């Protein structure tokens, strides 16, 4: 019987099976941020077990609230900072070098095909874009990961989503993943891995695959995962060139991970996206999705472009191409948070930041920012935000606020008009 990519990764990492369905696997990387890690650190100290399994496999960043906004967040940063120093965790990213964890860590080459990764953050599933098994966990799992380098999971049953067809101009991976979530529902993939395959995924760049995998958890999935290929190897080349003679060699090695032809799936969904249109969420759940045309005219107070879903350079390029020569509507506050310092620098170099600022956007430092209403960009009661983020939960961006999730193109277009609308990129494609 053949195996899926997730089963292959599990098989090579399993060290114990403490229950019929439960597997304990070793971890290649444990990622940490300042919101969920300090409690784990303090608990380890209290238990007199303040050790780390391998300082080289632990990566830490202050990203959710940075620069600190008050004494409590300053204290969280301090705990993480002192701990990283004490345990000689060299890959610790503080002010000036920090950015959104799920954009920063792939950029640094910390995510490799076949890796097992946990983090105390549900969007850790993003890293499956590289052919890794990466899952969000709570603080207790994180604590054990830090101490022992292991984590327990259920046997990874997989739903394969084969995406085929031709994406219309002005329609993006964000629209694809929103439509998949609406198709299978917010608990449609609970306890399962979603394997994204097919020609459409093959043609996507790494930024786009990360957007796809990032929101797998919004359908309840443990992880999203894509097959590693030439694009993966090219993206990672700087970090793997000592291990392989050529990019092609790396691809050959990675291909061993790809699911076998006779692998067994929980479900296979073949999904043709040729007719897909730009989408937006409308309620408080990410599976409540409608075409932008049906939301047309919905008044907004804020537009937020950023986050681990859509704060990467490709996203900023697309948004800037919509904003070029335009102004943000009077009733709208536009906020953009480039996800990492490198993305920020690149966006400056390409004139993207200039375009954002000329159009009237506020540009923030790299941070999780408005996405979870913890630091900047919080909505007032009754306010509405068009956002490129991942969650539209009640109160997510501030008590009594409403969030509509959409692509960077749609968010930028909505900023100009002051209400939800399609971008000119899509409209131009329609008229072809």
């Amino acid at each position, binding site marked *: 019987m053949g195996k899926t990519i997730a089963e292959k990764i599990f098989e090579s990492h399993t060290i114990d099976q403490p229950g019929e369905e439960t597997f304990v696997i070793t971890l290649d990387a444990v990622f940490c941020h300042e919101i*969920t890690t300090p409690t784990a650190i303090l608990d380890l100290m209290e238990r007199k077990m303040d050790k780390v399994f391998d300082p080289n496999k632990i990566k830490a960043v202050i990203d959710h609230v940075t620069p600190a906004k008050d004494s409590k967040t300053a204290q969280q940063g301090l705990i993480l900072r002192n701990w990283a120093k004490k345990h000689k965790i060299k890959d610790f990213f503080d002010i000036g070098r920090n950015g959104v964890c799920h954009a920063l860590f792939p950029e640094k080459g910390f995510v490799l095909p076949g890796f097992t990764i946990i983090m105390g953050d*549900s969007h850790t599933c993003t890293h499956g874009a590289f052919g890794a098994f990466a899952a969000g966990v709570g603080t207790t799992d994180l604590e054990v990961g830090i101490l022992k380098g292991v984590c327990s999971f259920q046997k990874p049953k997989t739903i394969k989503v084969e995406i085929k067809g031709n994406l219309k101009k002005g329609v993006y991976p964000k629209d694809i993943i929103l439509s998949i979530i609406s198709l299978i529902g917010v608990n449609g993939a609970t306890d399962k891995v979603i394997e994204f395959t097919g020609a459409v995924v093959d043609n996507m760049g790494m930024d786009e695959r990360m957007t796809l995998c990032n929101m797998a958890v919004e359908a309840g999935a443990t992880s999203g995962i894509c097959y590693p290929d030439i694009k993966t190897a090219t993206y990672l080349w700087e970090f793997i060139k000592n291990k392989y003679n050529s990019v092609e060699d790396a691809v050959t090695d990675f291909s061993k991970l790809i699911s076998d032809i006779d692998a067994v799936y929980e479900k296979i969904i073949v999904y043709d996206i040729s007719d897909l249109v730009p989408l937006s969420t409308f309620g408080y759940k990410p599976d409540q999705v409608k075409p932008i045309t049906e939301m047309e005219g919905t008044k907004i107070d804020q537009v937020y472009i950023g986050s681990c879903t859509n704060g990467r350079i490709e996203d900023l390029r697309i948004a800037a191409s919509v904003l070029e020569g335009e102004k943000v509507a009077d009733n709208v506050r536009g906020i953009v948070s480039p996800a990492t310092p490198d993305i920020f620098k690149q966006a400056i170099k390409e004139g993207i930041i200039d375009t954002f600022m000329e159009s009237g956007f506020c540009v923030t430092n790299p941070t999780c920012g408005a996405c979870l*209403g913890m630091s900047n960009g919080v909505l007032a009661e009754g306010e509405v935000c068009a956002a490129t983020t991942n969650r539209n939960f009640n109160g997510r961006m501030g008590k009594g606020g409403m969030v509509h999730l959409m692509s960077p193109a749609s968010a930028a277009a909505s900023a100009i008009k002051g209400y939800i609308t399609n971008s000119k990129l899509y409209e131009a494609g329609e008229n072809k």
Partner: protein
Amino acid sequence: MKNFNGKVLFLDRNDINTDEIIPAKYLTEIDKKALKPYLLEDLKLDNFSTNKIIEKKAIITRTNFGCGSSREHAIWALEANDINVVVAGSFARIFRQNMFNCGMVATELPSEAIDEIFSIFSNVDTNITTDIEKQIITLSANKISKNYSFRISSFDKELVSIGGWVNYAHSKY
């Protein structure tokens, strides 16, 4: 072991997420007990007010409870209120695992059983007793008492009895 018996809080909705259980603005707390007053502050549910949490020791709810963010603060906010057991139609993976990791109980019942429980008990003061060995919960209100059997893996049972995943992993790996 923690206490798994007492008065029940009924939350008649699917997909209650961890942002509703504990809003992100409180994730700046590093002391778990400080989360106590904020439990379910942003819950979107008709006729619900946080006063209803007082003296409750268990939650019974519908499907996909605890979806969204991985924040274990959701579990700690329950624990701080001495609510150590949640019975639901189903759970989000991370939430469920976090519960057992903290030595607490997240148990699933078939949707027919959940429907029955809501129709019989949700409008009256109800008490739960949880027998983990026999894998039975007993609900009682006025003169009605009903048993429901649930499944718990030997691994999860051990996590509950040993007080969570840190203790388990420390003794084994």
